[in-house]
């Protein structure tokens, strides 16, 4: 079965520092990849998605992610974080093969400190 691994459950950083949130998935077939952000007591908001084409995907709020098929990774990056980026970030994949559901990682809690 498809699985998504977010290697870091918590990532503390200082404001204006760069950050990378790691995501690896298990699949031998083509997949669609997503990063979602969840602010406290809210639903999930789409940050960015990879469907096909360029492996570097730019999203909202200055985030970007790079799809690496050989390493089955889809790491999320931001060159300079803000306090307002403090939230939980979820990597997700659709398994392909006609399956419509999203398979989520367990999330990474990003805390940006002043």
């Amino acid at each position: 079965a498809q699985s998504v691994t977010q290697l870091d459950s918590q990532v503390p950083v200082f404001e204006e520092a760069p950050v990378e949130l790691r995501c690896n998935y298990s699949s031998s077939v083509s997949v669609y990849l997503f990063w979602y952000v969840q602010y406290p007591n809210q639903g999930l908001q789409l940050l960015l998605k990879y469907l096909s084409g360029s492996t570097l995907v730019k999203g909202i709020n200055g985030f970007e992610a790079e799809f690496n098929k050989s390493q089955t990774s889809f790491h999320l990056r931001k060159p300079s974080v803000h306090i307002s980026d403090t939230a939980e970030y979820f990597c997700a994949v659709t398994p392909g093969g006609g399956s419509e559901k999203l398979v989520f990682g367990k999330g990474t809690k990003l805390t940006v400190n002043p």
Partner: protein
Amino acid sequence: GAGVSQSPSNKVTEKGKDVELRCDPISGHTALYWYRQRLGQGLEFLIYFQGNSAPDKSGLPSDRFSAERTGESVSTLTIQRTQQEDSAVYLCASRGQGYQPQHFGDGTRLSIL
């Protein structure tokens, strides 16, 4: 336009009671999903509706869980004889035609006493 709307936002009930959660998808979205998010966990897929096709129920954890959707409108998720392990946030998402991302509601936080 309006996003995915879920009600109630919070529900506290006693063990053994039945609960019904509601989801209003974005107008025109043909696909609707339910997920469960336990504390400190990612989201678990529960069920998926696409138009008039038979729903994908592969994620429902037990026969106490069921969901309905009439056409491309409102969906209800029902949990019968609730147990404490049912405590979670239940999230609904909808998706438009073609390959579009899922749009999520703010969820219903369910607490079983």
